[in-house]
């Protein structure tokens, strides 16, 4: 295996600018790695070899001509979750209903990546329409966790997290509606960030739940995530919910944090996210992380957010409701799959037959729950009440952030579970997002950073750091400080301990 694939994005970018290695060589090394391991991992749904190499060549030309790099990540490869459009390359959202759909336009995130000289390797696997916590709901087969191939890589962005942990890519883009960036990061020992809602454009992000969806950076280090965050963030006039404000200074914050001083910082442990239901190894790793943060000079207190207990049920009303409407457009009329068009069936029948054949079980379940929750007789008790709970959760955050600078919790209650373990038990599956959902409901940012391995199974645990809206620099600083201290104490990065994959 080439050492190139083990480098961080920051290191790769520097070596490319210093002409130590060409962007084409970097891209090729990662394409080779994908070819070698992805039959096993199944992180990618589509690999764009030509696109990647030509983007890399353009970066090399800039370097040769002595031009300023397009961004601090010029020439660095990236894996794009298959829920963001890239013109001319299939976007499937992990669904049969979109199996052959080729979008005629670029998502704003995609455009920013391309303009930054980032080399898009391909599109990554995901739970169908981002609904799931294991990537088992992909119509194109599950992705495997490089830490243990029998286990899930998290979801919905399991393809993106696994591509990082398998060294197929140093950077990835995920989307996080209830935890789909942070939970996969947690179970694969990688870093994942959900930015403030409105901080990164949703234009071109195929909607699951419009008021919760947010694209964000995935990487193997906090600094790499910050560098990517600054590339994709910022106002977009094509997204009405995009915030017209500068991207928080997250790169500076990550660099500052890495110096290891958190004195003066107040950190709150969420009382509601511990205890029963949390795997012992997760609790132990979390408690150890709290000690590390104290040693870095932070003041750590416990904070109660009483309505966080209701975040999960509120989420499982709001997200399916919006999804039932967002996914109505997949009707076999204008694009995507069409089933049963035999010149006898009506348009209505063809719609129903196509949606039946094209959607998987979890998508159907959520569409029906959402249809139920929005029905006139139930709206107030379900959707309406969930929107009120949402207000209360935002208020919990507000009062917590009057006491502390950031909140912390385990990212998810358990380490990676086994493939197949929860597929027939939707409620058990939903618990994976227990700790991540409040930030989606409130629109606030959060990061998951590797917090060691659980004692009982040797699998990665994630530490979640939550910040107030548009205050991402706080959580990056804490995460970077913690990452540096943890790496130093254990003699290396957590990701370096991932088992070697069998290369085929």
């Amino acid at each position: 295996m080439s050492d190139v694939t083990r480098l961080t994005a920051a290191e790769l970018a520097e070596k490319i600018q210093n002409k130590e290695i060409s962007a084409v060589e970097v891209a090729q090394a990662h394409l080779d790695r994908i070819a070698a391991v992805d039959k096993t991992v199944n992180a990618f749904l589509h690999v764009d070899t030509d696109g990647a190499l030509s983007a890399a060549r353009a970066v090399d030309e800039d370097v040769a001509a002595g031009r300023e790099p397009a961004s601090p990540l010029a020439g660095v490869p990236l894996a794009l979750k298959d829920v963001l459009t890239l013109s001319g390359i299939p976007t499937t959202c992990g669904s049969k209903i979109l199996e052959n759909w080729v979008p005629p336009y670029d998502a704003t995130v995609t455009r920013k990546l391309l303009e930054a000289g980032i080399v898009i390797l391909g599109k990554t696997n995901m739970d169908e329409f981002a609904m799931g916590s294991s990537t088992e709901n992909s119509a194109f087969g599950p992705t495997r966790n490089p830490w243990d191939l029998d286990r899930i890589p998290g979801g919905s962005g399991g393809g993106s997290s696994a591509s990082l942990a398998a060294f197929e890519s140093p950077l990835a883009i995920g989307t996080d509606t209830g935890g789909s960036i942070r939970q996969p990061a947690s179970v694969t020992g990688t870093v994942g960030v959900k930015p403030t809602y409105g901080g990164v454009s949703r234009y071109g992000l195929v909607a699951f739940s419009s008021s919760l969806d947010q694209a964000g950076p995935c990487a193997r280090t906090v600094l790499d995530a910050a560098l990517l965050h600054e590339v994709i963030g910022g106002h977009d006039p094509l997204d009405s919910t995009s915030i017209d404000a500068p991207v928080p200074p997250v790169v500076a914050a990550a660099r500052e944090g890495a110096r290891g001083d958190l004195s003066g910082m107040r950190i709150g442990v969420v009382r509601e996210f511990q205890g029963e239901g949390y795997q012992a190894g997760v609790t132990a790793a979390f408690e150890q992380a709290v000690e590390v943060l104290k040693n870095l000079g932070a003041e750590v207190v416990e904070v109660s957010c009483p309505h966080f207990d209701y975040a999960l049920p509120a989420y499982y009303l709001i997200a399916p409701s919006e999804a039932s409407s967002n996914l109505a457009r997949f009707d076999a009329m204008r694009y995507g799959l069409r089933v049963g068009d035999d010149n006898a069936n009506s348009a209505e029948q063809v719609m129903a037959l196509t949606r039946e054949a094209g959607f998987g079980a979890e998508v159907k379940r959520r569409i029906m729950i959402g249809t139920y929750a929005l029905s006139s007789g139930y709206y107030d008790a379900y959707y309406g009440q969930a929107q009120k709970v949402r207000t209360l959760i935002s208020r919990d955050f507000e009062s917590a952030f009057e006491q502390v600078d950031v909140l912390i919790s385990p990212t998810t209650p358990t380490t990676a579970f086994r493939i197949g373990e929860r597929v027939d038990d939707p409620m058990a599956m939903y618990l994976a997002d227990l700790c991540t959902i409040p930030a989606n409901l409130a629109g606030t940012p959060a990061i998951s950073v590797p917090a060691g391995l659980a004692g009982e199974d040797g699998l990665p645990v994630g530490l979640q750091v939550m910040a107030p809206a548009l205050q991402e620099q706080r959580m990056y600083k804490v995460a970077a400080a913690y990452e540096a201290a943890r790496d130093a104490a254990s003699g290396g990065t957590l990701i370096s301990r991932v088992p070697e994959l069998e290369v085929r």
Partner: protein
Amino acid sequence: MPNISRDEVAHLARLARLAVTEDELDTFAGQLDVILQSVARVGEVAADDIPPTSHAVPLTNVFRDDLVRPGLTQQQALAGAPATEDGRFRVPRILGEEA
């Protein structure tokens, strides 16, 4: 507390344009029942005087100027269509009312 019957699931599937099978009706009826019982917990929260949140960030008045932006060509628009004819999307006969 909800108690979702097979018939109600069939009704939801019809509303959502899902031609579910008989087997699925049985499975989904059980699963939706469990899920809805669980999410009904939101009702435990006293929230009568709490305003609902529909948007995570409190923005208002986001508009664009009335200026034409380039769109798609007819060829691009139809490129993903299952069937086309005369520059239009061809779809099976529509049972609905006259629009």
